[in-house]
Each structure stands twice: as C-alpha cells, then as structure tokens.
C-alpha cells in the first residue's frame, strides 16, 4: 500500500517533537479524536525513541522514517530505521517499557523488516471506537 505521508528526519531526540507535531496535523486532517490522537502520539513517540536510543551506534547519526497509511477506519503508522535491528539490550538506558506500551496502545503491532530490509515497527490504530479499548483504560 502506498503511504499517504512519509516523514524522514535525523534520528535525534529533539526530532521526536516534530513527529508529534506532524501527527497532530494528520489528526486535524483526519478528524481523529483527541484521545485517540494522544494514544497514537505516545505509541509513535515510543517507537521513534527506540530508534534514537538503540538503532545506531553511539556517536553515529542515522535516519528515521515515519510513514502513515489511512483507510476508512484505521491508521497504519510505520517507523523505520537503517540501524542494527531490534534485539535484546541488557545495558539499555530506558525502562524497557517502550514496546509493551506500543502494544497496549495499538490494535496491532508488527516488528520486523520492510521490503528493503529496514528495521520497522508497524502499528495499526483503529479510528473507530474508544481510546485504549484493548486494556479498558479509557479516559
């Protein structure tokens, strides 16, 4: 499926804020509810933070790419990098909650590689129904 939007940025922490703003624009265009948009922003931010923290060796800077495809009732957001892939990291500086949080907020999560062997986290969000319906923690 051809994405409706692709955003490519340097994998820096401060650029996650740009991704969040771009998602806000997407939310405006698609009339996504504020609660659902919050969930999408949190999940996508976590995926981007994983790229910033883990994808590239310390001292080197790579790219991250965020793409979004929309259909009538769902939004699929993929976060890609050209780095080392997803693997266990015992010395991780984070709490290790990122992927769990993404899984809690998205209807479906796929970890793997895209057709060009980029590391990819693909998240599917339903645009119908309540926010955080999966775990019943709606606000």
């Amino acid at each position, binding site marked *: 499926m051809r994405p409706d*939007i692709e955003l490519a940025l340097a994998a820096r922490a*401060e650029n996650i804020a740009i991704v969040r703003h771009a998602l806000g*624009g997407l939310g405006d265009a698609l009339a996504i509810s504020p609660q659902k948009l919050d969930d999408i922003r949190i999940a996508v931010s976590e995926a981007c933070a994983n790229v910033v923290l883990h994808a590239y060796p310390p001292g080197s800077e790579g790219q991250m790419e965020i793409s979004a495809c929309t259909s009538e009732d769902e939004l699929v957001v993929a976060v890609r990098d050209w780095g080392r892939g997803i693997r266990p990291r015992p010395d991780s500086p984070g709490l290790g909650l990122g992927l769990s949080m993404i899984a809690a907020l998205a209807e479906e999560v796929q970890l793997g590689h895209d057709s060009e062997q980029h590391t990819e986290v693909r998240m599917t969000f339903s645009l119908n129904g309540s926010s955080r319906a999966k775990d019943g923690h709606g606000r």
Partner: protein
Amino acid sequence: MSGSAVEEPRHTAEMTARIRLVSGPMARPVLCRVVSMVLTRAEWPIDRLDDAMLACDALCAHAYDHASDGRITLEVCARDGTLELRVRELARDGAAALLRDARLPGVGNVLEHVAERLAIEPDEQSGGSQLVLVISSS
C-alpha cells in the same frame, strides 16, 4: 570548568526534514506544523515565521494540481538563518505553473513577496521539475 569544547546548541545546527505526501488535505496541516516547529527551534522571529507559513499555504493550495504522480515531496532545510523549501516530484512544467498559481489579485505573487530566492530546477529523480524557495529569518 572542565575546559572541554563547548558543543554547538542543537537549534543552531542544520535541521532537515523530508515529507512526502499523497493526499491533498493532509499537506497543509502537516507541512505547516513541521515547518513551524523547525523554525521555532531555530528561534525565528514571529513575523518571518508567519511569512513562511504563508508560503507553505500557497504551496499546499496548488502543488497537487501540478504533481507528476499524484504526490509531492517537500524538503525542509533550516540552517544559518535561512529556510530552504524544495517542492519536488512536480510535472515537467509544474514548478513554473505552481509559481504562477501563487499570484493573488491585488496582492501579487505571494511566493515572490516572501522568498529571498526562487528557482525552478529539473528534478532528476522524477524526471519533472522542482520549485525551490529560500526564505531568510531577517
């Protein structure tokens, strides 16, 4: 003081983003938010930030009419007090047509008013054309 070299603040470093958009209604909200965020971080004055938003509005209003394949790529690069906006994947005569479309009755051409430099260049990747705007913060 450790005596180590002072690192350049991030907001003065070059900031680039590439945005590829397929559907028209998404272009304006997404591009305007990305550009405003980039320029805010670069500490642009509000009047020039507003001018840059005008340019983004003008581009988004007509770019799809001149896209070569139903989508456009916008490259945003902020460095040294300038913003370079590059609209790519336009049809062969699309960049010139997009520039013409930015003309408003009684106002003139919005892009020519706002940009310090405007250029129409071939887009080698798409085989079409690209429109380049350079806007200064001062």
